[in-house]
């Protein structure tokens, strides 16, 4: 075997290209709806136009007459094949407990009411259009401020919920010389991943395979088995590539079981590709929220009192709640803090995870209010943050494992040339364009879950990593490959990483930015076991030049087993003492705080993430500072974003390139969540209106001319062995506030209700 003089050595942090890039751009990557199954039946959904009431009659004669239509599932012909399974936060697996086709009842607009099955997609769709379904409609309660909604306090909605509190916020607010008291809101938003919501099911005897893009294959497997009343071993979920997820594929939806039932009945594989508009109601979305923030401060800007009241809209049955006060009450030092969260049950589909579910909506009001405070104090907003920076968390008084917030502000401010900012609103102009610069802080909890992995090293120097983790476009394949390459001393190209298949050892779902920390640490552990076996054999061997050395001090590097002084032997030579074929190691890792049964629960598809503000002994967050430049036209008031910049410190960065891309995507989405994204509702019908990508706006390139990421070095030896904090969500937290703050700086108009649109600026006299 020939070997190049210097084998490629992977260092953690290297900006390695994505290992799956080529497969993705050439079309070789197989997404959820891509599997080729024999003689598939195509499914098309029919969904309810009413939000509340009963189906009174289904006339499917015309639909069944369409050539190619094979069957139509409705509540009238379901035979109890699907069992109720609990909602995620009630200890179950479901993203929504609303079971379509289980009764004539309709609980939200866009609820699935029929599944048309046909030999072609076109026939199925035509059949669905020809279904005549009659309803007895009741007046729905669309959300905030409407009659008939039920408001529930956080603690009643969930046993785990706690409202962070310390001191006497009320009294301190009353006594504070400078006060901000304001109300804010954020709209309903949908992920709209480009890959539509698809499901393919095939039975082989009593074994079911589900191909569906998923952020949590083991949870899907166990949940679906429970729904169908079959053993979990009989379900396999395959999801190697995911065409965008952002939380929307984080929990099992009700559609999968319906397709499994259809496949069983017809004895053929069934493939569903739901339409874009159906995706707005058959999966989850970001709930609409409202907030009241009260801040009391000294003349020098030190916070004396902070209170944050949050309100979130959810569906009738499910207590979905993000409770972002966990983060918002811990960003700054403050002796008196009060908070509360309430949920409002309305006639809507159940919301769910969407990138930084708690922090995006809850830091918007806080970081807007901080800007308002800076204005009231005539203080630079960065200096206000500096005055309130802290090394201990204000609620429990615990230390942050690391916190580099001000380093991020300082690095970011330098790169952004914050110094050019004239603090006077409306003072900076370029011809007819008003210019505004704004900033805000970002924070995201550092969380980990129990994880398992199997690593195989072969005598020819290739390696395989198998774990049911997920690459939702983040670069997980690449960084997991990198840790194995680094620990086993083989080139990255020689590592085959297999993810997204419930037949692999379980790993946590891709949520809470935990994957890199959870999975890289367990893969490192498995690699270490392989290394230890090789090293132990070497030190015990007479013919090794490493004999009698401390095995713990030996490393695999550059295709060799080496000691501290760099001497050693070829990997092949060292390996042969253990195996002439392959060495395989399976490892489990239960990180600090997850509880003793974490691995067992992981195998049942149920996971707990530990970290953030949930640990007893310490507080773990990553931080960042974000800067936005806006331009507003003097006459027509269009808003454009020439530049957004974020500086982030998040412990060890596994790959500078994929991390920067993640954070940049986060910044862009953050701007989008402030200026563009909003799902409008026809409140009379409690029905979403702009359910397509022409009317649900996301930015185009011309809207955000430059997005820049700075990674501020940070070491954190406490969070986990590798010191990884996670960056998947950090990038789009706080950006919405930075946008609103920049807008205020440009125009003198404070907008507290997102999205910010030119409508709100037309009447402004300050411009």
């Amino acid at each position: 075997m020939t070997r190049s003089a210097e084998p490629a050595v992977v260092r953690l942090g290297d900006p390695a290209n994505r290992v799956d890039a080529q497969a993705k751009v050439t079309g070789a990557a197989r997404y959820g709806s891509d599997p080729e199954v024999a003689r598939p039946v195509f499914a098309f959904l029919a969904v309810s136009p009413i939000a509340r009431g009963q189906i009174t009659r289904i006339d499917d004669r015309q639909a069944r007459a369409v050539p190619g239509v094979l069957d139509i599932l409705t509540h009238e012909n379901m035979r109890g094949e699907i069992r109720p399974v609990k909602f995620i936060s009630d200890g179950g697996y479901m993203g929504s407990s609303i079971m379509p086709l289980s009764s004539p009842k309709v609980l939200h607009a866009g609820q699935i009411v029929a599944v048309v099955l046909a030999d072609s997609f076109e026939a199925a769709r035509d059949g669905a259009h020809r279904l005549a379904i009659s309803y007895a409609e009741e007046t729905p309660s669309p959300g905030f401020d409407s009659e008939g909604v039920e408001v529930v306090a956080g603690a009643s909605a969930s046993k785990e919920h706690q409202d962070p509190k310390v001191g006497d916020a009320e009294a301190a607010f009353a006594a504070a010389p400078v006060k901000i008291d304001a109300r804010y809101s954020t709209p309903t938003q949908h992920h709209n991943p480009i890959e539509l919501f698809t499901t393919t099911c095939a039975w082989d005897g009593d074994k079911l395979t589900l191909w569906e893009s998923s952020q949590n294959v083991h949870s899907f497997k166990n949940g679906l088995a429970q729904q169908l009343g079959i053993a979990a071993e009989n379900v396999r979920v395959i999801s190697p590539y995911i065409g965008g997820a952002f939380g929307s594929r984080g929990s099992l939806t009700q559609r999968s079981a319906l397709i499994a039932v259809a496949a069983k009945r017809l004895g053929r594989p069934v493939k569903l590709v739901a339409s874009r508009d159906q995706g707005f109601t058959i999966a989850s979305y970001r709930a609409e929220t409202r907030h009241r923030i009260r801040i009391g401060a000294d003349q020098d800007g030190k916070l004396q009192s902070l209170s944050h009241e949050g309100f979130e809209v959810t569906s009738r049955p499910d207590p979905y709640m993000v409770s972002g006060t966990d983060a918002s009450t811990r960003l700054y030092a403050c002796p008196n803090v009060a908070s509360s969260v309430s949920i409002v049950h309305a006639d809507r589909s159940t919301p769910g995870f969407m990138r930084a579910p708690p922090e995006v909506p809850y830091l918007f009001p806080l970081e807007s209010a901080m800007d308002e405070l800076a204005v009231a104090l005539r203080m630079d907003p960065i200096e206000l943050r500096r005055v309130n920076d802290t090394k201990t968390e204000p609620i429990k008084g615990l230390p942050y494992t690391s916190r580099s917030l001000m380093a991020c502000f300082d690095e970011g401010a330098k790169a952004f040339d914050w110094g050019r900012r004239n603090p006077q609103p409306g003072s900076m102009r370029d011809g007819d364009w008003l210019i505004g610069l704004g900033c805000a802080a970002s924070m995201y909890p550092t969380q980990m879950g129990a994880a398992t992995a199997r690593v195989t090293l072969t005598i020819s120097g290739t390696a395989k990593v198998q774990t049911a983790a997920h690459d939702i476009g983040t670069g997980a394949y690449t960084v997991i490959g990198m840790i194995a390459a680094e620990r086993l001393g083989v080139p990255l190209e020689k590592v085959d990483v297999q993810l997204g298949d419930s037949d692999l050892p379980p790993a946590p779902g891709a949520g809470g930015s935990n994957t890199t920390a959870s999975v890289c640490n367990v893969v490192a552990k498995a690699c270490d076991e392989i290394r230890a076996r090789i090293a132990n054999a070497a030190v015990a061997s007479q013919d090794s030049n490493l004999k009698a050395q401390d095995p713990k001090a030996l490393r695999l590097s550059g295709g060799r087993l080496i000691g501290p002084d760099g001497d050693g032997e070829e990997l092949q030579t060292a390996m042969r003492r253990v195996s002439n074929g392959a060495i395989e190691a399976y490892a489990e890792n239960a990180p600090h705080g997850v509880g003793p049964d974490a691995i067992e629960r992981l195998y049942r598809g149920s996971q707990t993430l530990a970290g953030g503000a949930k640990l007893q002994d310490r507080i773990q967050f990553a931080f960042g500072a974000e800067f936005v430049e806006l331009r507003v036209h003097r006459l027509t008031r269009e808003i454009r974003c020439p530049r957004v910049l974020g500086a982030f410190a998040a412990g060890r960065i596994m790959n500078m390139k994929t991390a920067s891309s993640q954070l940049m995507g986060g910044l862009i989405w953050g701007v989008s969540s402030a200026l563009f994204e909003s799902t409008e509702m026809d409140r009379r019908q409690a029905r979403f209106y702009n359910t397509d990508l022409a009317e649900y706006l996301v930015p185009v390139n011309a809207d955000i001319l430059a997005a820049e990421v700075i990674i501020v070095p940070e070491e954190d030896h406490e969070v986990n062995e590798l010191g990884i904090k996670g960056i998947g969500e950090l990038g789009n937290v706080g950006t919405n506030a930075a946008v609103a703050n920049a807008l205020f700086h440009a125009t003198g108009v404070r907008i507290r209700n997102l999205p910010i649109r030119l409508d709100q600026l037309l009447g402004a006299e300050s411009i």
Partner: protein
Amino acid sequence: MRPFSYVRVDDAIAASQATGSGSAFLAGGTTLLDLMKLDVLRPEVLVDINGLRDASPPATMTQGGMRLSAFASMAQIAADPNIRRDYPVIAQSLNLAASAQLRNMATLGGNVLQRTRCNYFRDPSWKACNKREPGSGCAALDGVNRKHAVLGVSAHCIATYPGDFAQALIALDAAVETIGPVGPRVIKFDALHRAPGDTPHVETNLAPSELITAFILPRAPWTRRSLYLKIRDRQSYEFALASAAVALDMEEDSVRQARIALGGIATKPWRAHAAEQALVGKAINEETANGASQVALAHASPRPGNQYKIELGRRTLTRALLQAASMEVRA
């Protein structure tokens, strides 16, 4: 999409004769096929007129001005050097529309006949829509109507005419050549579209199988000093919240003649004659431009969700007039 039969024709006369009730011309298909997939349009016969694309040149200089083939793509016309020089408002209205892919696919004829983007119209599961289902009501009146019209509205429909190109055509006094069951005719572009009134489902004055073959752009002293200003939430790939097509004939600093059309805020391509008159003999400055804008929106009739469009429409026109007045125009 319901099953349909399909014929392809390659001359205009055959096309106008191949059609009957229940048939539709298929050009780029970027409006028609969308609405068929959504089950809004259910033609029984598609008469594919793409064979006519090469039958006549996209744009021809004529004695009186220019002739644009109705079968030319938006991209072809937007890139035509004569159009860009002599009729910048036409090139810009096309270039600022849709996306590059759509502009390559879509034709001028299909463009002027594109349907409203009112989502109550585009999804048949909303019950009330007079345009889709005459007599069923109008869900937008008290529903989501931020993007709906404030000019030319009726109690039966407030849907915005979404296109951009049509504003340029109407501003320039363009004409439309057609071939119908009774032969060819030429009508003013102004007479092509109808305001909704109490028949919002009837959008044009074309006969059922009348085929548009060309658009005629007259030569005039104001066409070179012309522009299209389009205001929207995002910078591209969105329909106008408000737009203005403006053409000015200036004598020194004063307006000899003005041509103004407004988009994004009206139910049909909208010519603002009174605002044009208000400018004659005046210099263009913020005050006179504002004055004309006030006149242009004087009869606007908003709903609560689109009240802002009155002010936005005015400001859009003001800005367009200021920009047009300061254009560098080669004689």
